[in-house]
């Protein structure tokens, strides 16, 4: 990249004043002075963090963050909105801090990536050129796997698995349902965004129903045969909500294959139907749309990457982070995406400056509220090895203890809220 170093260049120039002033003009103009152009598609936990840390590592970078939404509504804590513990405003985040840092925030949709020409075409007609591209598109849904349901039906049967308007729709359905009704939550098969999320959702809905519609039930029809923090959730449910929540395993009729939108009924593989007052079917998932369009996914529907630096194994100048990436032992979570965004930023800055990248270190913690004062967590520290990709450090991590007193659960509930304040300020602040 840099075939003549500064000393050689000065020798070459020989102090010619006319030449020097011309050079000065060029060197001072802003475009060429940037140490590289990085475009980031997606302003969620992965993309917004990556943009911020790129700027922190190298303030001379020309960074553009492409995100259609003016305000990003987080999926984390949207369950608290469903339960009536939070308002939408408190889980919505702007990009003002990014703009203040000198990051260009473009509120448009990335329509097409041209990997050969290193360009991104936007829905508003503009084109962005890049040296490195980061794609952090989140998830899309496998509607093709579910009979009787398409994206347009989400207004009637909101999955609410992206924070946003569907969160409000689902909340309104819960407040409108009669006491004594049934809320059905149907979580998808692995892998999917936020493994403990559906069960925190059941908890927050139960907390609302217990206070407002105590004769109601929650039925979880699960595609899986076990789930994240299962013993802790079940212990908490029994303690706080008695028998309000019933969980049906995938091999006991929980696996849904057909949806009747008008009848608000889910049918399992055996043809048995379950009707609910409110039905929250969370469809099976795959990497976000643009990852598919750009040829960044493999047959799994997710994006294979070099897990050391998140460079796509299919297009090495494009990095894929967050839920869309295949990140070894890390779960698909906002926390993981934030952690990956930092590692990816370090990898890009090191590559552009031809310096040695530090050995990557990644962390994840997933807090869940079982009740307003009852928190549980799962955590791990991760490293990279060439032969196994991202792996959990032996002896690190694990879930909250099964035997813990009310004070411990209360502390973790407090830290759940503290975590949300911290990670959203680390990502958008």
């Amino acid at each position, binding site marked *: 990249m*840099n075939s003549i170093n500064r000393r050689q260049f000065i020798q070459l120039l020989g102090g010619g004043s006319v030449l020097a002033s*011309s*050079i000065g003009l060029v060197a001072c103009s802003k475009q060429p002075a940037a140490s590289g152009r990085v475009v980031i598609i997606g302003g969620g936990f992965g993309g917004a963090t990556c943009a911020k840390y790129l700027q922190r590592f190298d303030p001379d970078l020309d960074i553009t963050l492409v995100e259609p939404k003016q305000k990003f509504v987080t999926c984390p804590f949207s369950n608290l909105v469903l339960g009536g513990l939070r308002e939408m405003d408190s889980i919505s985040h702007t990009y003002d801090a990014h703009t203040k840092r000198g990051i260009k925030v473009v509120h448009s949709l990335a329509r097409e990536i041209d990997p050969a020409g290193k360009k991104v075409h936007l829905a508003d007609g503009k084109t962005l050129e890049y040296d490195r591209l980061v794609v952090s598109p989140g998830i899309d849904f496998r509607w093709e796997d579910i009979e009787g349901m398409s994206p347009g039906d989400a207004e009637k049967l909101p999955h609410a698995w992206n924070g946003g308007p569907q969160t409000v729709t689902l909340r309104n359905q819960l407040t409108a349902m009669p006491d004594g009704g049934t809320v059905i939550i149907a979580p998808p098969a692995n892998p999917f965004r936020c493994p403990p999320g559906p069960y925190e959702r059941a908890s927050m809905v139960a907390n609302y129903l217990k206070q407002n519609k105590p004769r109601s039930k929650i039925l979880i029809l699960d595609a899986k045969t076990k789930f994240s923090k299962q013993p802790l959730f079940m212990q908490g449910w029994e303690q706080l909500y008695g028998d309000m929540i019933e969980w049906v395993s995938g091999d006991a009729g929980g696996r849904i294959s057909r949806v009747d939108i008008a009848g608000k009924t889910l049918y399992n593989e055996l043809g048995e139907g379950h009707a609910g007052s409110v039905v929250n079917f969370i469809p099976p998932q795959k990497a976000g749309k643009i990852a598919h369009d750009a040829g960044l996914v493999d047959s799994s529907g997710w994006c294979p990457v070099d897990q050391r630096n998140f460079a796509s194994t299919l297009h090495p100048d494009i990095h894929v982070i967050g839920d869309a990436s295949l990140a070894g032992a890390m779960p698909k979570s906002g926390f993981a995406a*934030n952690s990956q965004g930092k590692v990816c930023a370090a990898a890009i800055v090191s590559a552009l400056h031809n310096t040695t990248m530090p*050995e990557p270190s990644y962390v994840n913690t997933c807090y869940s509220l079982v009740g307003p004062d009852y928190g549980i967590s799962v955590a791990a520290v991760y490293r990279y090895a060439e032969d196994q990709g991202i792996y959990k450090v032996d*002896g*690190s991590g694990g879930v909250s203890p099964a035997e813990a007193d009310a004070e411990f659960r209360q502390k973790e509930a407090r830290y759940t809220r*503290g975590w949300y304040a911290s990670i959203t300020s*680390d990502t958008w602040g």
Partner: protein
Amino acid sequence: MFRLRLPAALVFTAASFSVSIIAPAAEISQGAMLSNSCAACHGTDGNSPGAIPTLHGKSADFIERALKGFRSGERESTVMGRHATGYSDEEIALIADYFAGLK
């Protein structure tokens, strides 16, 4: 990249100059890599806006003792024991020095 009409040779040297004139960003340290992952709970640079303790302004000695205490279990915690077990003595020292060295 360059809009000015300059002789080709000059454009070439100018391009080289425009790259090399930038003080190369300091190599990203191992301490920064390790410590940035703490920020998701403890806030950017350890400035926590909520219930989780702030690390910014704490001495290296304090952070090192705390992490080692969490790791051994001598110091009670909710989640920190599960994190501290992921780091060696050397890594704990790097994290402690990183936070203590922040302005």
